[in-house]
């Protein structure tokens, strides 16, 4: 029976000391410990979240990089293609111009030649006329003295001369 009868002394000391220990431990142990643990948990969660976010950002960045690279590549190809096109066009244009120029040159040369030739023929004709006249003069001077019939005959000969 004594075993299950609480003694007033222990009851009193237990009540007092447990109340005190509850208050003291709450204030000086549990609150700081739980706060530090909570803060640590929060900071771990925070770090994990941040890591996840950074990872996502990295992926985003990489995607962006790839996109930019692809764009650059495309642009380079465009530029190259344009350059090639320009080259071809310029070449073609140059060729065309050159042909045209040469044509022009030929044409002008030809016309020059023709006009020169006409001038030369004209001169030759004049020369021939004067020469023939001279020749006829000399011949007639030698054979015909002042005979107009003879003069007319000579002129008719010269006129029928196929010089062209």
């Amino acid at each position, binding site marked *: 029976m004594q075993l299950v009868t609480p003694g*007033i002394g222990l*009851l009193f000391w*237990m009540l007092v*000391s447990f109340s005190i220990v509850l208050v003291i*431990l709450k204030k000086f142990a549990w609150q700081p*410990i739980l706060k530090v643990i909570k803060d640590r948990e929060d*900071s771990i969660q925070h770090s994990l979240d941040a890591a996840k976010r950074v990872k996502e950002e990295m992926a985003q960045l990489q995607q962006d990089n790839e996109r930019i690279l692809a764009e650059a590549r495309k642009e380079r190809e465009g530029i190259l293609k344009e350059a090639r096109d320009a080259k071809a066009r310029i070449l073609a244009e140059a060729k065309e111009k050159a042909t045209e120029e040469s044509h022009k040159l030929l044409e002008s040369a030809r016309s020059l030649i023709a006009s020169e030739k006409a001038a030369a023929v004209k001169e030759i004709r004049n020369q021939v006329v004067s020469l023939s006249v001279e020749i006829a003069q000399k011949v007639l001077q030698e054979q015909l003295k002042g005979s107009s019939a003879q003069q007319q005959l000579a002129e008719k000969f010269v006129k029928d001369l196929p010089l062209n």
Partner: protein
Amino acid sequence: MSQKSKTRFMGVLLAVLSLFSAGQAQASGGSSEPFVPGDFIFDHIGDAHEWHILTWGETHVSLPLPVIAYSEYSGLHVFMSSHFHHGHESHDGLGLREDGKLVEVFEGQELVEVLPRVGPELFRSMVTTEGQEPDAATVELIASFEAGEYEKVAAQVSSFEILPYDFSITKNVLALFVSIGLMMWLFIGMARRYQAAPDKAPTGFWNLLEPLVLFIRDDIGEASIGKAKSHKYVYFLLTVFFFIFINNLLGLVPIIPGGANVTGNIAVPLVLALFTFVITTFSSNKHYWMHIINTPGVPWWLKFPIPLMPVVEIMGVFIKPFVLMIRLFANITAGHIVLLGFFGLIFIFGDKFGPGAGYGVAPVSVAFTVFLYFLKFLVAFIQAYVFTLLSALYIGMASEEHEHHGEHEHGENLAHTH
């Protein structure tokens, strides 16, 4: 090699235990009195006004403790228990009874002086045995007491014992203080360490304590009370858990300052259960009481006209903490009794069949004791856990928020069906 050293260790242990036993047997038996296992066991699990450490032959080594007692007749007494000389002498009018209780003894002239202050009711209760008719001599004694013939009464009763209010720092009280000191040192130290380096992961011993703290916060507090409210009660749960756990463990340490039966003394679980009861009651909401008065899901004829369920539920309010108290007390005390019983076997055998039988049974006793120690180590944790968990559950039940609407409908539906 290790096998050999182990055997040697066991040998030393046995030698120490048998030395201890020799002393004990002599102490309890004086010279030739037989060993009484009941006294031996209850001596160890009970409280005492001195802390017995060792008995060597006729020499008792014990730590004297302060006696603080208040008596209505002689006022306050404060002195060291060494004045009792291990219970053989009285001091300052106080002495130790056979069962270890502090008593105030009045004899001779003192008795004549003190008798008038003892009321007739108390006197009657002290000279008669309850439930028995007093014999003629006792009736005459009471008659002369009531007539005021105190000298005549004093001559007849010769001595008179009363129990003063005993607030002594007994063995259990000292062990309680030691455990509280240990707790403060541990956890305030832990808090300091945590505050000094909040970002550092715990190492060493703190690493052992932190999982327990987290276990109580998450798996007991939050799981039973709910996340929203548990932070109010988690301090109590933590304190209760570590208080019980540390005291249970200290109770397993066989030498001073361990070895006292703190959690196995009914007063300690009583106060702990009282705390649970007070906290539960103060955190209870209207719904909790409505649940008790009008338990939902129970046929109406259990509530009216005879309020059977409400009576059972109201009893339950008190039975819950009472059971908490009994569970802790009984588990720890029973463990100590069984443990000491196995030890006692050595002396029982030694007493009955000679020292040889005692030594012969010792290895078996020690083997069982070692096994029981492991068991009690487990029990130390389990009881702390169970007490904390059930406290948390009771608090959780009392403060739980309900979906008022749904519950009401449920109750009405039931009422209609019956």
